[in-house]
C-alpha cells in the first residue's frame, strides 16, 4: 500500500473495496508497471493496469454518461447509467467501477447498452418530482442533460405529479429537497468520505431507500457544518443553498436603505463560469460595475478585512507566543485560523475541547460588517440601522455565520445577508446583465485599496501566506522579497491535503509603530524572537483537519506548530459550497491560478502595508491591534456544541 492509500484507509469510512479508487492512476502513460491495451468501440487504447473503463474511454474521447460518478469521490457504481458491454461478460459492466486488468473488447453504445441506459433514466425520472422550469438547477442539471442526450420524450414508467416529502429548509445554509433526489449518494460520499463529517447516510432498503440525517432530524439540528460540499456535487436540485436573493432585491429597492456589498476573493475567479466562461477567468472589476448597475450603493472588497484579519490574528499569535516563550504561561498553541465558518462549526461539534486554540478574530466577512456599521456609518454620517450589509461569498456556511447571535457586537447585525456566487450570477441574469461584457470599475472608498495578501485568502494556504508575509516583515524589518522571490511563499501553496513549513526568523528589527499603538503590548523589542523557527501548517477539507487535530492530540509533529490554517472545503474558498457547479480538481486548480495571478498584479501585496487598514487603526481602532475597540468589534467567541444536540 502506498502512503496515500494508507492515509486514506486510516480515517476513511468508505468501504474497503472503494478506497483503492481514491488513488488516481495516471492516464498519461507515465505509470510505472504494465500497460494494457483495450479496444473501445473498435479503437485501441493503452492504459495503465487498473485504470477504469471510464478513464480509458476519456483518454480517446469516447464519452460515457455518468451520474453517481464524481472525480472527487470514491466509486459507487450505483446509478448504472455508465454501463457498457464487455465481450465475454454475461452482464453489462459499470464503466466507472470496472478496473482494467486484462485486454478487453468494450462496446459503449450497443442496443443492449442504449436500451439499458434509457430505461435506467426512465426509472430515475419515475421518482424525480418536479418540472425543470421551476427548478433552480434548470439548464445545469445532470439528469436533465442526460434526458436530453438520450432523447427522453415520454415517461415510460410515469412521473410523480406531487411531492412526497417536505422541503427541509431548517438550516441557514443548506436546503434538502428529497423529491428531487435520485439516490446517487454523491452527498453521502461527500459528507462521509470526503469531509468525514457524516451527516448524511442512506436509510431503509429497496424502493424505500432515502438519504437521511441522524434520526431524520432537520439539518439545523444535526452536526452539519454547512460546508455545502454536498450541494456542489449533487447532480440535481436535491441539495441547494438557502437563497436570500428576494430579501436582497427588496432592500435594494427600498430607498430608505443604504445597501452595501463586500465581495470575497474567490467568487470573482469563478462567477464567469455561470456566464459560459472557462474556470479561472477573473471578472473582479466587471463585477463591480454590475453590482452598482443592479443597485448596490457601495461595492467593497472583503480583502480589506482580510488584511485586517491578518493584523488582528497575527498580533494575537505574537501575544500567544510571548506568553508561552517569555511569560512561561499556559497558552493554547498552535493557534488555529478562524476565517472558515465551516471549519469553525466543525471544531465546535467534533473537537470542542480544542476551541482554546482558535484565534478569537472574526472572519473577514464579519469584521467588514462590523466596520461598516460603525466606522463607515460614522464617517459618512449614515444611521447604521438603515445600512444593509450584503456579503458575496463562495461559501454556504457564511450564511450560517452571519446569523450567529454573537455576530452583532456593534449593536447591529454585522452582516445581514450572505449571498453566494451562484445567487449573484442569477441576480445579474435576472437584471439582464451580461457580466463578461460589463465595463471595469474599481472598488469604492474608503476601503478601496486591496492588497494581494487579501486576494489569496481565496485559496488554501492563502491565509498562511498572507500572515507569513506580514509577520516576517513586522518582526525582521526585512522585505519578504529578500527571502522569497516576489514574496511568493510557494511551500504553503498547492493542493496537498496537509502542508507543513518551517521558517527561521533571520534577524529582528524594531517593533513597528502599528503594534505599539496597543498600550498593553508586553514587549518593546523583538529580541525574544531572534533566531526563532516558526512552524506552520495548512490543511484543507475537514477530513484533513481531522488528521491534523488527531496528530496534535497524539503529540505528533503538528503539535509543535505555532499556527495552522484550516479551511473546511477542499481547495479552500475557491472550492466553497456556494461556488458554481460543477466542481473538480481541474476546475479548482484553474480558479486558484486566477487568484494567484490577481495577487501578483497588485502593487501592495502585504496586509500591513494596506493604507486603508493603517488609516482605520489611526482613526478608529486607536488602541491598536488586539486593543479594546478591536476586541469588542473584531473578535468573537465560540460555542462548544459537541456531537449530541438536544
Amino acid at each position: 500500500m502506498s502512503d496515500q492509500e494508507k492515509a486514506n484507509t486510516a480515517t476513511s469510512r468508505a468501504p474497503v473495496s472503494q478506497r483503492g479508487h481514491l488513488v488516481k492512476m495516471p492516464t498519461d502513460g507515465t505509470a510505472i508497471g504494465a500497460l494494457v491495451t483495450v479496444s473501445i468501440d473498435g479503437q485501441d487504447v493503452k492504459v495503465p493496469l487498473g485504470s477504469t473503463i471510464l478513464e480509458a474511454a476519456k483518454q480517446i474521447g469516447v464519452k460515457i454518461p455518468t451520474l453517481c460518478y464524481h472525480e472527487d469521490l470514491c466509486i459507487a457504481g450505483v446509478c448504472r447509467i455508465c454501463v457498457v458491454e464487455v465481450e465475454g461478460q454475461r452482464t453489462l459492466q459499470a464503466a466507472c467501477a470496472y478496473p482494467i486488468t486484462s485486454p478487453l473488447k468494450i462496446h459503449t453504445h450497443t442496443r443492449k447498452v442504449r436500451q439499458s441506459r434509457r430505461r435506467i433514466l426512465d426509472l430515475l425520472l419515475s421518482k424525480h418530482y418536479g418540472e425543470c422550469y421551476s427548478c433552480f438547477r434548470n439548464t445545469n442539471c445532470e439528469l436533465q442533460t442526460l434526458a436530453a442526450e438520450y432523447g427522453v420524450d415520454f415517461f415510460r414508467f410515469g412521473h410523480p405529479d406531487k411531492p412526497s416529502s417536505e422541503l427541509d429548509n431548517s438550516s441557514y445554509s443548506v436546503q434538502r429537497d428529497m423529491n428531487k433526489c435520485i439516490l446517487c449518494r454523491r452527498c453521502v460520499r461527500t459528507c462521509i468520505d470526503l469531509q468525514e463529517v457524516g451527516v448524511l447516510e442512506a436509510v431503509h432498503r429497496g424502493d424505500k431507500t432515502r438519504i437521511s440525517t441522524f434520526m431524520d432530524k432537520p439539518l439545523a439540528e444535526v452536526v452539519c457544518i454547512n460546508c455545502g460540499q454536498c450541494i456542489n456535487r449533487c447532480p440535481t436540485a436535491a441539495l441547494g443553498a438557502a437563497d436570500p436573493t428576494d430579501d436582497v432585491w427588496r432592500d435594494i429597492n427600498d430607498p430608505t436603505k443604504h445597501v452595501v456589498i463586500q465581495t470575497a476573493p474567490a467568487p470573482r475567479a469563478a462567477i464567469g463560469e455561470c456566464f459560459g466562461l472557462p474556470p479561472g477567468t477573473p471578472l473582479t472589476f466587471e463585477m463591480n460595475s454590475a453590482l452598482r448597475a443592479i443597485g448596490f450603493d457601495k461595492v467593497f472588497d472583503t480583502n480589506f478585512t482580510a488584511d485586517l484579519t491578518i493584523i488582528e490574528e497575527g498580533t494575537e499569535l505574537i501575544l500567544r507566543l510571548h506568553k508561552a516563550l517569555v511569560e512561561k504561561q499556559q497558552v493554547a498553541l498552535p493557534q488555529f485560523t478562524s476565517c472558515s465558518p465551516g471549519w469553525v462549526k466543525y471544531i465546535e461539534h467534533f473537537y470542542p475541547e480544542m476551541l482554546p486554540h482558535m484565534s478569537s478574530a472574526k472572519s473577514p466577512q464579519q469584521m467588514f460588517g462590523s466596520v461598516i456599521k460603525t466606522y463607515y456609518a460614522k464617517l459618512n454620517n449614515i444611521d447604521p440601522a438603515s445600512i444593509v450589509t450584503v456579503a458575496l461569498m463562495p461559501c454556504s456556511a457564511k450564511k450560517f455565520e452571519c446569523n450567529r447571535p454573537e455576530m452583532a457586537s456593534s449593536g447591529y447585525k454585522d452582516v445581514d445577508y450572505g449571498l453566494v456566487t451562484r445567487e449573484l450570477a442569477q441576480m445579474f441574469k435576472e437584471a439582464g446583465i451580461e457580466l463578461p461584457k460589463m465595463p471595469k470599475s474599481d472598488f469604492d472608498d474608503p476601503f478601496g485599496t486591496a492588497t494581494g495578501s487579501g486576494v489569496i485568502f481565496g485559496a488554501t494556504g492563502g491565509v498562511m501566506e498572507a500572515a507569513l508575509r506580514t509577520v516576517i516583515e513586522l518582526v525582521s524589518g526585512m522585505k519578504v522579497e529578500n527571502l522569497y522571490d516576489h514574496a511568493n511563499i510557494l511551500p504553503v501553496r498547492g493542493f496537498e491535503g496537509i502542508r507543513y513549513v518551517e521558517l527561521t526568523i533571520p534577524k529582528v528589527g524594531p517593533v513597528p509603530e502599528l503594534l505599539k499603538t496597543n498600550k498593553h503590548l508586553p514587549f518593546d523589542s523583538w529580541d525574544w524572537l531572534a533566531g526563532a523557527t516558526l512552524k506552520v501548517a495548512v490543511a484543507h477539507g475537514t477530513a484533513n483537519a481531522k488528521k491534523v487535530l488527531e496528530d496534535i492530540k497524539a503529540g505528533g509533529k503538528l503539535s509543535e506548530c505555532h499556527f495552522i490554517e484550516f479551511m473546511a472545503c477542499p481547495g479552500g474558498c475557491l472550492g466553497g459550497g456556494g461556488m458554481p457547479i460543477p466542481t473538480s480538481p481541474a476546475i479548482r486548480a484553474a480558479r486558484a491560478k486566477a487568484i494567484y495571478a490577481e495577487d501578483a498584479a497588485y502593487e501592495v501585496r502585504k496586509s500591513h502595508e494596506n493604507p486603508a487598514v493603517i488609516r482605520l487603526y489611526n482613526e478608529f481602532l486607536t488602541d491598536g491591534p488586539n486593543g479594546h475597540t478591536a476586541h469588542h468589534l473584531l473578535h468573537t467567541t465560540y460555542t462548544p456544541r459537541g456531537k449530541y444536540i438536544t
Partner: protein
Amino acid sequence: MSANRKGLVTFSTIDPNAALAAAVAKTRAEIIGEVTASKLKGRGGAGFPTGVKWNLAAAAKGDAKYVICNADEGEPGTFKDRVILAEVPDLVFAGMTIGGIAIGAVKGIIYLRGEYTYLREQLESALAKRRAAGLLGPQVMDKAVAFDIEIRMGSGAYVCGEETALIESLEGQRGEPRNRPPFPVDTGFMGQPTIVNNVETFACVAAIFAKGAAWFASIGTEKSTGPKLFSVSGDCARPGVYEFPLGIMVSELLREVGGENAKAVQIGGASGHCVPSSEFTRTLSYEDVSTGGSVMVFGPQRDMLAVAKNFMEFFVEESCGQCTPCREGNAKLLEGIEMLEEGRCSAAYLDELTKLGEVMQLASKCGLGQSSPNAFLSIVSHFQDELMGRTHGLVR
C-alpha cells in the same frame, strides 16, 4: 443425517476427522488440485468452480487471508444448510479448515443467518470440542498450520447472502454489495484475499478429502459433479430435504417427493426460474436449471400471478436500494403485477415490463438485481394466457 434418500445420505457417511487428516498430509497445491479434480462447483447456486476460487485466493497477495462460510441461508424455500449445520457441523468446520490451509488463511468466519441464532450455542460447543481435540487452534492436528473459526451473526437482510454484501456486513457497514471486480479472492474481508463458500460446499470439500476427488466426480454429470441437497417444499406429498445426484430430471424429483401432478416448479428460490410442466424433462444441474437447493412445487390449483406477486414483494422488500435497476425496477414489476391483477395491464405495457426485466438482469450491480426478475419473466413467458386472461374481465 436426516435428509430423505434411498439408502444412506452421503454426508452421514463422512468422517470429518479422516477428511482433515487426509488434507493436512497434502501440500497446499495438492489440496487445491484435489478440489479442482473433483470439479466441485459452489453449492450456493451460482456454481463457480471451487478449485478455481481457492487457487485465485491462494495466489493473491495479502497481509492476512480469510475463509468465510456463507451460512446466511436466505433464499426463499431453502433450508438444507440448516440441516447440515444442525446435524453434521464438523463437516463444515473440517471443510473450512481445509480451505484455510489451501489458501493460507488462519481465520475462518461463519456468517450465520440471524434466524438461525438458536443454532449458535451448539455450533460454539462443537467448535470448542474441536479446539480441545486439536482440530482447530495454533497447531491443527499437530501440524504447523493454525486455523480457528469465529461465528458472526447476520441480521436478516437477504442481500447479505451476496458475498460482497456479506463482507460489508461483517465489516460493520450497511449490507450492500460492492463493485466486482475486484473479487473477494483478491480484495475481500478487510481488503484481504478471502474465499466465501456456501455451507454445503465446505461439507462437500470434507467429503472429497474423505472419499477422493475421483469418487466425487463420478457422481452427477460431466459438468455438475457430486451429490446435492435439495430443499423441497410446496404442493407435494413429502416435502423435506432430499439428496440426489446433480443432473436429476425435474420429473424424477417430483416422483420422489410426491408432486407428479405439479403445474410448475420454481427452482432456485425467488431468484430462480419457474419451470412449467411441459419442461419437466429438464435437469437440475449447472448446465440446465441451476439451484442452490430450493425446489418449490406448485399444484394445478395455484394462481401463477399470485406466485409472481409473492416473489416480487419479496424483492421489493429485500433490494438493498443502491442501484437503480434493482431499487426501482422491482417496484415497477410489482406495480405491473398489481395492474395485471386488476386487469389494467395492456399487452404493450407487459412487453415494456419484460424489457425492463431484461435490463435489470443486464445492468443491476449484483446477483440480487440480476436475478430478481427471473421468476417474473419465466412466469410471464410460460403463463401469459393465465396472466392476460384478466385483462378480458376474467378476474376471479
